[in-house]
């Protein structure tokens, strides 16, 4: 029934994915969260990862972020096979994650959060907070995170949108290849959501691969350059921008449509 070409090569080019997984499986006891799943995210693109609850999105995300290793299958960064033993490994490969709960330290200010664990130092053991604050302010300006007025106050006093801005800006500052965003707009209002989406697009335009996990399908269609659909632990469909609409996505998510050969 489908004439839609699977996204074997995006936009007519044969670019190498910034990060990809191939035939990945992961089980938790009797639960098989991933059953030979594949996924690709290309530089300079927003790749949406959609699927119903239990489709394996968060497991796949955790594997990409280095939180857990797959039972089977391969992770590749710029086409080269890699093994992540912990999240720091993924970070070293330029992969940053914006977690749904943001993982900010509420009692520290924005600069301290942005540089947490990677503090600029003086005399090896002192932190150079003035310089960290300066670079944070610059990064916020560059990224257009105009959300933060006062870099000196703890982030606990920020609104949800401001916190999301800090969390995304932190990832954008450190990521050299890939940013994974787990439902970055789930808890935000309309205007704040619009700002976060703008921010995502600016990050994409810098040449990073953005992996965007969301349930809001109109938003997914609006933001994404490519969409990959997971169902029951496998990739069942891939769409380039313009190939999908809400109905087709729902069909893919629910199993009524597939353009991916299920092995």
């Amino acid at each position, binding site marked *: 029934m489908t004439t839609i070409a699977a996204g074997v090569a995006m936009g007519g080019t044969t670019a190498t994915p910034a990060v990809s997984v191939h035939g990945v499986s992961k089980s938790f006891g009797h639960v098989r969260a991933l059953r030979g799943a594949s996924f690709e995210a290309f530089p300079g693109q927003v790749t949406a990862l959609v699927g119903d609850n239990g489709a394996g999105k968060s497991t796949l995300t955790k594997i990409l972020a280095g939180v857990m290793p797959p039972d089977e299958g391969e992770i590749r960064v710029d086409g080269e096979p890699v093994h992540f033993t*912990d*999240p*720091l490994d993924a*970070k070293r490969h330029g992969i940053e994650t914006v*977690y749904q*709960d943001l*993982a*900010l*330290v*509420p*009692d*520290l200010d924005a600069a*301290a959060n942005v540089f*947490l*664990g*990677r*503090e600029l*130092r003086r005399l090896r*053991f*002192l*932190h150079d907070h003035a310089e960290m604050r300066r670079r944070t302010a610059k990064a916020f300006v560059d990224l257009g995170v105009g*959300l933060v*007025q*006062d870099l000196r*106050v*703890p982030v*606990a*006093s*920020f*609104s*949800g*949108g*401001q916190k999301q801005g800090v969390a995304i800006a932190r990832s954008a500052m450190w990521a050299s290849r890939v940013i994974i965003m787990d439902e970055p707009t789930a*808890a935000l*209002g*309309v*205007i*704040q*959501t*619009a700002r976060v*989406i*703008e921010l995502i*697009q600016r990050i994409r335009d810098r040449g990073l691969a953005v992996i965007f996990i969301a349930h809001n399908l109109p938003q997914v269609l*609006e*933001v994404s350059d490519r969409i990959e659909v997971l169902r029951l632990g496998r990739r069942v469909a891939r769409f380039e921008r313009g190939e999908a609409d809400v109905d087709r996505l729902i069909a893919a998510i629910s199993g009524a449509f597939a353009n991916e050969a299920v092995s």
Partner: protein
Amino acid sequence: MSTGRIQDPVDTGDVAPARQSIARAILANPTIVTFGALLVIVLAFSALAPGLFTQGSNFVQLAQNVAILTVVSVGTTFVIITAGVDLSIPSGIVLGEVFAVQALKLVAVGDGTTAFDVGADQTTALYVFVAVAAALLGGLIIGLINGVVVAYLRVPPLLATLGTLGAGLGVALIMQNGVNSATYALDPVGHGALIAGIPNLIIVALVVVIAGFVLLHMSVFGRHTYAIGSNPEAARRVGINVERHLLRVYLLGGVASGFAGFLSLSYFSTTSVAGHSTDNLQAITAVALGGTSLFGGVGSIIGTLIGVWIPAVLKNGFIITGVQPYWQDVAVGFVLIAAVWFDQLRRRSRDRG
């Protein structure tokens, strides 16, 4: 792309710092409240007893009295900022004293006597060094057990350190056969004044305060201490080894206690196996008075310093003005409750969605 272009000047979610009232600013900084309280207390006693209270020697005496508490409170500040607590301070102090005494007994001086037996005029720098090293070791052992049990075995710090409180004091009593030992070998430290007019204990406490300040407020170690107290999961995700850091914080607390034991031995010229039983509560009181949050993530060394002084000044002032000094306990109790209440208000006013 349509919603991505919306620009609305009215973002209701943003902070408006200009509208923060003075009350909010004070709430945001609990140290100001306690500093104000200390200032009021000092001014009140200065007015009531201008001669006795305000003379310089009174403040020097006060500073010397609080020196040992200051040292342990600096350590406790770190522990409480991690959202922990250290009840084992008395056992750290007493083990420090006992280790120091036992170590001095190992240093032979000649004809059957040891460094433990020498008079104040025969002490050498070596004896002092041996005593310091042994006292630090005693505190380190308590801190090591606290750290391993809290960080790796995940026993709640209240009970973990309650356990080492009892166990450490027990070991000290066993080593001493239940009796105290007096030694004058360290008197030059406890009663001397290398800098004329300023007792050594004050200098030592000041050095510890400065070191604590640098470590907490200026170092990466201090930054991570705040982070772990505020959101350990966030710290873990950026690659901070939370367990190892917690262990180090409890080691620091233990070492501070052990060092306080050395200072206590040098000042009182005797061990005090039953003499420090409320030092833990005094230190926690000082730290909480100083605006350090028992829920972690917030606190300062300067606040702790103020918190150490409030009870001491109250007691001193009551004695000088002829009021029963026990009123100090009553006053400190209520000031403590007020300080913790302020911390709660601050959290509620600050935390947003």
